[in-house]
Structure formats: structure tokens, C-alpha cells
């Protein structure tokens, strides 16, 4: 066990992935010598050489096209997109190519060796273009896996599993937690399962689900609610595609209530899918409507970021609304 922040845990996972798989390559804008603008790839070029960890030209569509080619050849491609806000030029390569590569070829070719790492979310005064949470766009794309870790220990295990999963994975890193989240992380090589949610705290009155940095908001809201005698069950979804409906449904059947929290705008955010599925799966158990506490349906703002965010207070209010329905 070592104390690590989220960046160190990710760096450690990349180090292990490259050590254990000689075909693993790390690349993206500024990831080489410099170690990336957040330093997630620090020292990897030093350790593994310029042939395995390197800068690319500044072209996200190129990075993903290139990564698809590398993975199609059978190597392990770990591509960084500097900010999730800049993943959109690569949308075609991801949605039309990575996601459909295996299917369209009848399993003759695949890009299962591809993992895309990208920092997402607010909290750094980044406004429209350094704060977005675009995960929901990708959840509408069969063929992709989507993973979001909430802390250093989870990040290491989930990233190693993502890199080794034989399907293309987008790994969204909550950049707000890069240095803020610190915790004990096992030193060894370990993987946490994709596609499985985790019940991080049991409770009986209401279920709260979130992922990544928003886990903090629901945890704080749960503490506030506890003072009112409300017992919250907290679930970290961890994987958004495929996602773990059963764990969530099991919890909601028990509590009868569900609050979903995410940072992305409300309309067609992943909360919509969760609510749609759970109202179907748990219809007779629901005692109040499923509520979504989310970012606003606006671009991500700057001066009024605090107002925009689906924080613990908004979540707490939703808990009360649900309990008092």
C-alpha cells in the first residue's frame, strides 16, 4: 500500500500496464518527455523509451485514427485526449470506427486493444472547454465500454482492467480529483471488474447513484440526510456502458427511491437512461419519482460554476423531495 493521489495512481497503472505488456504504447498531445499537461504520463518516456511513450501532432481525429490502426494490428494503444472537451474531433473515429470495428468485420479485425484516457468535468475554473462531461454521448454507442473511477485505488484497478479488456474503452478521469483525491493504493498489479457497480455504503431509505467526482456530492448529501434520520444507500456506477442495472435495481427495490447525480447537462445525460431503465425494472417498488440532480442544460459556465453544479445541497434537497413525495 502507498499513499497516492489520483494522478499517481493512474501513472502507476500505466507503468504497470507498459511493464507487463511490451506491446503497450502511450501517446497523445504532450504526453512524451513532458508527461502530459497534468503529468499523468510522467517518467514513462524516460522508462520505456520514445518508441513507446510519445507526443503526437495536435490532432484528436488523427490520434484516434492512429490508435485504431495500432490496435487493429494487435498492439495495445493507450491514447490520451488532453481534455474530454477535445474528444469531439475524434468522434467519428470513435463512434463509426472503434465501436464498429469488430462487428463490421465479422470478428476478423478488432480494436479491442484500444483505451482512451481523458480528463473530464469541472472544478478547475475551466469554463465551456475545460470542464465538459461528455460520457453520455458515448453511452449511446454499442461497441464501446465507458469507465469512470472515483478515487485513486479505483482508478488504478479500473484503468488496468480497461487497458486489458478486449474491447475499446473510454476511461474518463475526474480531473478535479487529480491532486485532491488521495488514498491508499495497493502496490501490486490488480484489476477491478468492468461493468460492475459498487455499493459504497448501505442504507435503507433511498438510493443515490453517481460516478467519478460526483460521488463526493452524494456522500456529503447523505451525511446531511443522515442528520434528518434518512438512511441513504450510495452506489458508484463505475462503468456506464455496459452498466450494472441489476445492482442498482436491487438497491431500489429495497429502498423504493432513487436519486441520480451527474455533472453533465440533464437532457439526455446518462441519468436519463438510468431513470428509464429503473422505472421499468422497479416500477412496483418505487415510492416516488426517480429524480435527477445534474448540471444545467447550458454550456458549462465560468463565473457561476458554483450555481451550475449539482452539488451536495441540491442533492440533499432532492432527497428531501423524494422522501416527502
Amino acid at each position, binding site marked *: 500500500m502507498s499513499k497516492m493521489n489520483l494522478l499517481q495512481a493512474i501513472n502507476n497503472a500505466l507503468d504497470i500496464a507498459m511493464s507487463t505488456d511490451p*506491446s503497450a*504504447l502511450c501517446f497523445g498531445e504532450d504526453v512524451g*518527455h513532458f508527461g502530459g499537461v497534468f503529468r499523468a504520463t510522467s517518467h514513462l518516456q524516460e522508462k520505456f523509451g520514445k*518508441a513507446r511513450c510519445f507526443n*503526437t*501532432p495536435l*490532432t484528436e*481525429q*488523427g490520434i*484516434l*485514427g*492512429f*490508435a*485504431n*490502426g*495500432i*490496435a*487493429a*494490428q*494487435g*498492439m495495445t*494503444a493507450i491514447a490520451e485526449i488532453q481534455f474530454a472537451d477535445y474528444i469531439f*474531433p475524434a468522434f*467519428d*473515429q470513435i463512434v*463509426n*470506427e472503434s465501436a*464498429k470495428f*469488430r*462487428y*463490421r*468485420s*465479422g*470478428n*476478423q*479485425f*478488432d480494436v*479491442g486493444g484500444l483505451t482512451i484516457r481523458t480528463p473530464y468535468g469541472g472544478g478547475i475554473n475551466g469554463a465551456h472547454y475545460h470542464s465538459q462531461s461528455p460520457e453520455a454521448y458515448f453511452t449511446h454507442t*454499442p*461497441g464501446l*465500454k465507458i469507465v469512470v473511477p472515483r478515487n485513486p485505488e479505483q482508478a488504478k484497478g479500473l484503468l488496468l482492467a480497461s487497458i486489458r479488456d*478486449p*474491447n475499446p474503452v473510454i476511461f474518463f478521469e475526474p480531473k478535479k480529483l487529480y491532486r485532491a483525491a488521495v488514498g491508499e493504493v495497493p502496490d501490486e498489479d490488480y484489476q477491478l471488474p468492468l*461493468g460492475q457497480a459498487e455499493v459504497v455504503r448501505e442504507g435503507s431509505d433511498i438510493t443515490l447513484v453517481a460516478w467519478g467526482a460526483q460521488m463526493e456530492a452524494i456522500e456529503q448529501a447523505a451525511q446531511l440526510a443522515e442528520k434528518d434520520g434518512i438512511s441513504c444507500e450510495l452506489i458508484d456506477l463505475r462503468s456506464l456502458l*455496459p452498466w450494472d*442495472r*441489476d445492482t442498482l435495481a436491487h438497491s431500489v427495490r429495497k429502498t423504493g427511491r432513487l436519486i441520480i447525480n451527474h455533472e453533465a447537462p440533464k437532457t439526455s445525460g446518462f441519468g436519463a437512461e438510468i431513470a428509464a431503465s429503473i422505472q421499468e425494472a422497479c416500477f412496483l417498488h418505487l415510492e416516488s419519482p426517480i429524480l435527477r440532480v445534474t448540471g444545467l442544460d447550458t454550456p458549462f459556465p465560468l463565473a457561476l460554476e458554483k450555481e451550475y453544479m449539482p452539488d451536495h445541497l441540491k442533492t440533499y434537497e432532492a432527497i428531501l423531495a423524494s422522501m416527502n413525495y
Partner: protein
Amino acid sequence: MSDKRLTDAHIVHDSVFVDASALQIPTLRILQEDGTPYSDAVLPVLDKTLALKIYDTFLFIRALDERMLASQRQGRISFYMTETGEEAADIGSTAALQDDDMIMAQYREQGALAFRGFTPDQFMNQIFSNEQDLGKGRQMPIHYGSRQLHYMTVSSPLGTQLPQATGYAFALKAQQKPNCVICYFGEGAASEGDFHAALNMAGVFKVPVIFFCRNNGYAISTPAHEQYAGDGIAPRGIGYGLKTLRVDGNDVLAVLKATQEARKLAVEQHQPVLIEAMTYRLGAHSSSDDPSGYRNKSEEDTWRAKCPVMRFKKWLIHQDWWTEADDEQRKQQHRDQIMTAMKKAEKVPAPPLRDLFTDVYDQLPWHLQEQQQALIEHIRKYPQAYSKTAGRVDHE
């Protein structure tokens, strides 16, 4: 790391704008229209076996394209694309490669695949989307792919294969494989952003890739002069630090020669190459298109006279490697073989329902299992509505 730019190279003191006139890119041609080489031409490495294999592929592809277009008109298949007029470009270039060099095609390069040995049955199974199609009946006709033949499955979005080729070539180099990638694309696709990314990255990473542009004058109805304003695609290669060559795409010996040399540069020096083959799409864009709406017959006739198959045949006959009688006979053989394969493929059933769900992921996640189960039950209830699969859902 650090600044290696030469910013003091060639200084002038009055403003001079440089434009396309500063760069002349010649066109390589070896065979004259009459099938004889120019006297000073330097021929490619080519023995009789290879020459006849290339020519035989020409004949096969002509027969295939003719038959399939006719079948489309008859309503037997929904869609088809011919490469008529451009056979020298893809077949001549693929003939310069090793069999395990990777081919990444756009969609009009069935000749390259035939050269590699894709069988008439394999073509037909793909075109008829039956259960023997290597692609499991999931993509439109002509979206071929063969892992065994190192021919990447075709994907309709234009240009996407270009940066993939750079990546694939990077991986080949990383693994010290003595191979290259050839990546085919049209002059239309060259307008996509992916083209830029691909060639720029290939230049930076110095990877063994040959970008092969079939400049056939049109992208559907859009003529080349509405596609770009410069002197074609070749000059772009220079900007990216690639070695660049323009070739008469209807002269198979020139294409073969250019690609042989390009392959050497790519494999031995990891020097990426751009080849622009000047040719013409003699047929319609696809079976859904009618070019009479956007170009005139006389233009087509000019190019029909420049037929690459004819030119090469004349050369073969000059070489005493081929006769008109051989020609007739072989054409008929191809036609027969294709007809037989077609009739066979038509009768092969569609892929099983299972294959609607497999390969989205390496394994079926819960939600696809659920959707599959629900669909099976639904089909059992309404078998008459889903005739392709209803008879089989219970035996899968």
C-alpha cells in the same frame, strides 16, 4: 526536445508569394497507348508469371463488375460499385507488394483483393450477405475484408482508413516487421480532415506506409476541380515530408514500377510515400448513380480509349505472352465461374439471428443477452414476419 527549426534559411527582402507554379510534379508513364514502352522507359521488375497474374486479375474484375452490375439491375442484389477503368491502379500497385503487406482500401479496390486470391465464392457470399460471408452479412455489398489475405474490412466513412494506416504502419515498424501498409483513397476522400492527420503523422513518425490516391476525376458528381484548387493531391505530400510521385494510373507498368520503388522506401527506410494515380471512373459512382446527369459521353469515350486493360494486353501480346484467343477463352471462364458462384451464394441462407448480437463486444453483455432473448420470443410469436430467421431461432 527543443527548437530545431531553421528560421534563417533563405532570406529575401521583398515579398514574393509562392504558388502552385513553383512546383512541377511530373507523371510517370512507361507504356504508350499502343502497348509499347517509351524507348527510355525503365521497366518494373516483372516476369511472365506476374504479368499474367495481373492481367488475369484485370479480366476477372471486369467480368465480376459486369456481372454484378447486371445482377443489380435485375434486382438480385441491392447495390454494387465497379472499378471499371481503374484496374491498373489498384491491381498494379498491389502486385508490387508482398502478400502479407496490409491493404487498407476505400471501397473501389476489389481488384487488389482478387489479386490476393479472394475467391469468387467469397466475393459472392459478401455481396449476397449470406451466412458464409466473412463479414457475417452485416455490411453492404462490396465491403469486403479478409484477415487471411491482409485486407482490412472496408468501412464506408471516407478517409477514416488513412490515419488507421499510419497507426498500423507504426505498429509494423515497432515490431520490426519487414512489411508496409498500402492505403487506397479517392481524390474526394482526400478532402477529409483524416487525410491531413494521416499524412502529417506518417511524416512525423516515419512509418512504412504508401498512401495511394486514385484520382479518378470525380467524387460522385463532384468533379476534381470543385474538390481542390491546386495541382491535384501530389503536392500535398511534399508539405508533409513524404516522398511523392504521380503516375499514369491507366498504365499498369508505371503503377507497378512506382509502387515497387515506394515499397522499398517504405520498408527499408521507413519513408512514407504518397502516390497519385491519374485515372478515370468510367462507370457510374455506384449502382445508385447515373453520371449522365453531370458529365457528357464524349468525355467518357476519351477515357474509354485509354483503357488500362487494353493497353496492357497489347504489351502482353507484343511480349508473345498472350493471344486474342487466350483472351476470349479466359474471359468466358471467368464469366462462367462467377455465374456459378453467384447461383450458389444466392441459395445460402442469411446469417443466423445470433449474429445480430455477437461481435458488438468480445462477449455478450447482459443487455444484449436480454435483447436477444426478447427478440427470439418475439420471432417465435410472429414467424411469418421474420422469415429469414424464424425457421431457425430454435436451433441456434
